[in-house]
């Protein structure tokens, strides 16, 4: 019964129909909120007492770091769905999300490195947080490379899903690395449990940037997934009708 339910609501055709309607909402609200958050953070948030103005990279670095991990977690849920219930849409979504995950992880690493120059006096340190994030970036590239190395796409989908599930162990390591080890990277400044050490004048633009970045990445994900679905199903009647 669960399998029938999942297969009914996870057909690529209905996914494309629904997400094509949602796309304008995500792109408009995403770009607007991201612009608002960044303008707010860059122009109106006060200067940090310790780090000066270099801390303004936070409005880009934190959202990108959060979504670098969330996208991989999303991929691992899709991978489980593909392995357990053979949902082909789930495999398509992994393939569509992986380049976006790689891109946003690169932005997180790059912005962190640049921020490190004035703050730590170095652009790179092999500490637990930074190294585990680099491993996440390599995992994204590995997923893409593995899938691209097979001509049998169904086999590629399965092996890619297995790799994604195995690699998800890195996500809690990234999250807890600043607590488990003594790292140069600071512990989390914001927490869902309420122990937030950041002033509201900086927290609100940061929160706005996180939501804006999320919606922008979802809209990019929708576009990328449509491209991949059309590529995989280009010989199906519904694709011919849709395009």
């Amino acid at each position: 019964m669960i399998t029938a339910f999942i297969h009914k609501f996870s057909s690529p055709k209905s996914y494309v129909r629904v997400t094509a309607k949602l796309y304008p909402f995500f792109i408009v609200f995403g770009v607007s909120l991201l612009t608002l958050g960044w303008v707010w953070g860059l122009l109106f948030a006060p200067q940090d007492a310790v780090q000066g103005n270099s801390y303004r990279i936070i409005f880009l670095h934190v959202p990108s770091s959060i979504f670098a991990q969330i996208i991989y977690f999303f991929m691992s849920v899709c991978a489980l769905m593909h392995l357990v219930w053979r949902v082909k849409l789930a495999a398509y979504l992994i393939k569509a999300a992986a380049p976006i995950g790689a891109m946003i992880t690169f932005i997180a690493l790059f912005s962190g490195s640049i921020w490190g120059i004035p703050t730590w006096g170095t652009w790179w340190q092999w500490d637990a947080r930074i190294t585990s994030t680099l491993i996440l970036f390599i995992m994204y590239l590995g997923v893409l490379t593995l899938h691209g190395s097979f001509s049998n796409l169904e086999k590629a989908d399965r092996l890619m899903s297995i790799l994604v599930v195995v690699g998800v162990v890195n996500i809690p390591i990234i999250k807890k690395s600043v607590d488990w080890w003594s790292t140069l990277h600071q512990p989390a400044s914001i927490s869902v449990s309420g122990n937030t050490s950041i002033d509201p004048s900086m927290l609100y633009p940061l929160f706005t940037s996180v939501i804006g970045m999320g919606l922008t990445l979802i809209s990019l994900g929708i576009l990328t997934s449509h491209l991949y679905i059309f590529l995989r199903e280009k010989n199906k009647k519904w694709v011919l009708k849709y395009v």
Partner: protein
Amino acid sequence: MFNLAFSSLNDFAHMDGHGMYVWPVYLLTILIIVLSFAAVRTKIKNLRMRIKNASS
């Protein structure tokens, strides 16, 4: 909360010497995101053309 953090446009650009770190990060990110959207949209457009031509 909505007081400007800088007294002039020059101060805003310079950010007490930190502008050289802050601006490249934002500009590169905007460039990467815009190029990603543009690349995917172009690929979809080309694929649609290919599928249409193949079916006609």
